[in-house]
């Protein structure tokens, strides 16, 4: 806890002190610029530098402890003023050269940015181009047909079943993973002792990096057999609920959903933890000082502050779950049927269907798979947009909601 002087007389102190501890002027900038760069107007603008509240308040935060050579460039006010006093003579020539170089650089970065937009457009265009051919040959309705026979003549296929499977498995994964992930994040940030917390944070980060194919392998060979007992139990006792009904259990939506949940758990937990770590200690202490229990402190200070971050982490997880290919392709038995019995060995997802169906696809079949990929693209994009909207609305908080 830093203790600062608090009177107005001493207000300028931290700033002066911070810059005084730095070496006078960094070498790089002076040698580069002293000769030919006038920038009188720029300098004039920058001279009355008023550090933002944040930096004045905590002088140790950004500048002093940067620890990189560049902190040396934090010139003291005196040295900032120096070039202004005597503008170099060849002002106009220097300015235009600098202006051109700046413009060139700016345009390079801008081109890259626009290149990214082009990339997105290209993704959409090429998927559409390839898809239309197959779609025009389709004798079923692409959005409502459950069957997937694009390689027959005449081809008949639709994404209804696979889209259904995508949504269901992803939803199961979210329902399981998000609360647990938030629990893990809270455990690490609030409950665990400090040393343990940093180790656990590390472990979760590493688990988030385990590739999906490994989770798929594990889900297929280790988890699926172990899930049989739980599935039978659910089927026996809760079978009257259609979701748990059905005649048999096996490599089902539920198993795929659990595998997906385990896969997205580390990533959602790791991101949520980051968010909770950013909750200022001051807010946590404010809640405690009002007489909050630990849980009330979490509800008052941690969760509201972290909510947008948790939502965006969950959406990222949802996107991952919907787009996850390999694990589901390994687990689900690839049948094209919309079923409300989520314990039965049935179902497929768009992504898994692409991976499974790719090998034997003919020209129309490839187009059909690409068309289904386009649907997946659109659905994940909608999810993203919703997530962004939620976060944006939270951000310009108007005071209407708690």
């Amino acid at each position: 806890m830093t203790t600062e002087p608090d009177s107005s007389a001493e207000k300028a102190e931290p700033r002066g002190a911070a810059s005084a501890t730095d070496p006078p002027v960094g070498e790089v900038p002076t040698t580069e610029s002293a000769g030919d760069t006038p920038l009188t107007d720029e300098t004039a603008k920058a001279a009355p530098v008023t550090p933002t509240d944040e930096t004045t308040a905590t002088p140790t935060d950004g500048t002093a402890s940067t620890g990189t050579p560049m902190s040396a460039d934090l010139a003291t006010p005196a040295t900032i003023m120096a070039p202004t006093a005597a503008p170099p003579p060849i002002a106009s020539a220097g300015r235009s050269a600098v202006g051109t170089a700046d413009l060139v650089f700016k345009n390079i970065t801008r081109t890259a940015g626009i290149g990214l937009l082009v990339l997105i457009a290209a993704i959409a265009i090429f998927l559409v181009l390839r898809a239309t051919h197959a779609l025009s040959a389709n004798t079923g309705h692409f959005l409502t047909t459950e069957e997937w026979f694009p390689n027959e003549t005449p081809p008949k296929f639709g994404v209804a079943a696979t889209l259904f499977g995508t949504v269901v498995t992803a939803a199961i994964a979210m329902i399981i993973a998000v609360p647990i992930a938030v629990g893990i994040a809270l455990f690490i940030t609030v409950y665990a002792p400090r040393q343990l917390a940093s180790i656990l944070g590390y472990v979760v980060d590493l688990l988030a990096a385990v590739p999906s194919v490994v989770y798929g392998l594990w889900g297929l060979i280790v988890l699926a057999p172990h899930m049989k007992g739980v599935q039978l139990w659910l089927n026996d006792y809760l079978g009257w609920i259609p979701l748990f009904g059905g005649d048999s259990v096996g490599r089902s939506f539920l198993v795929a959903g659990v595998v997906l949940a385990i896969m997205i758990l580390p990533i959602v937990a790791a991101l949520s933890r980051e968010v909770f770590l950013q909750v200022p200690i001051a807010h946590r202490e404010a809640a405690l000082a009002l007489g909050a229990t630990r849980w009330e402190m979490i509800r008052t200070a941690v969760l509201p502050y972290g909510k947008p971050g948790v939502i965006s982490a969950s959406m990222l997880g949802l996107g991952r779950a919907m787009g996850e290919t390999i694990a589901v392709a390994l687990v689900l038995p690839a049948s094209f049927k919309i079923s409300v019995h989520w314990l039965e060995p049935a179902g497929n997802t768009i992504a898994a269907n692409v991976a499974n169906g790719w090998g034997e696809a003919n020209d129309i079949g490839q187009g059909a798979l690409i068309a289904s990929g386009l649907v997946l693209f659109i659905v994940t994009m909608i999810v993203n947009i919703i997530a962004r909207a939620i976060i944006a609305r939270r951000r310009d908080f108007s005071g209407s909601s708690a």
Partner: protein
Amino acid sequence: MSTATAPDPVVADDDRLNLRGATLPRWAPFAVAAGAVVVSLLIYLLTSVDSEIQILLMAVVLFLVAITVVSTVVEGSRRARDRFATTLVYTAFLLALIPLVAVLASVISKGASRLDLGFLTHSMNGIGARDAGGGIYHAIIGTVEQVLIASLIAVPFGLLVAIYLVEYGRGRVSRVISFFVDVLTGLPSIVAGLFILAFWVLALHQGFSGFAGSLALVVLMIPTVVRSAEEMLKLVPNELREAGYALGIAKWKTILRVVVPTAIPGIVTGVMLAIARVSGETAPVLLTVFGTNLINANPFSGEQSSLPLYIYSQAGAPQQVAVDRAWAAALVLIIIIMVLNLVARLFASRNRLK
């Protein structure tokens, strides 16, 4: 006299300060936990329920209910809610650890038995479906080349986009770009594969190759690189930029010589994490690299293999020898990714910008 003095004892009980609270002794949760375990074990012994997972879940639920009830009676509802939440958080954590640790344990135990030098130095050339031999040499070559090429393209590109967004981006264009970076972040990896397939392989007739796989990985890497570089550039204090401008340094030079070098440790970390992430991507590679059993060191021509793809194809095979190979390859892939991660994080903690 202010109105704040008006004593209105909704909260404080004025005759006493009311500082005391009935609290359960420290051993109480442990006692309740022991009780829950005993009851679950009895159920296990006396009924037909025989799944360990179910017994575990039952014990947890019993504990949750019991501790909440006990706490409500002794400590009141606020405390009870706190206990309930605490229990849930601990449970979430412990339950989650089980599968996650189980994954690693399976990979290590099953993978280590098959992993040896021969496995690392041989391809699958001439290995029949039931043969026990073979290795991942060709897959390692493929993964390294594909990821390397992808990084060479995606990192500079992503960095430029990040610089644009942080240093120049103001108006609508940058907002649109920023939005689509998010869209790309959520892009399913299989869609990236389908795109390169439709564009590079089918439309341009370039055929399957390591390079096609690299392109698909580029699509996946870009948003990660942009976002992490953006974060790091934003962390660079504005004073550094202003000091640069005030000294008369052109903006582009300030960016390249002051801002980017300051942010570079964080950017390197982000890039390494992005590399680690795409190294494990299977779906895009599946559609673009196609896979082969032979060594193909040329990423620009002909099918290649890659580690994730190898794991996928071996895992899907019905023979136990193939599954064994899959576990061993998974172990190698995890080791590669963990090393990349650890190095990135060590690097980050050594050069922390904050």
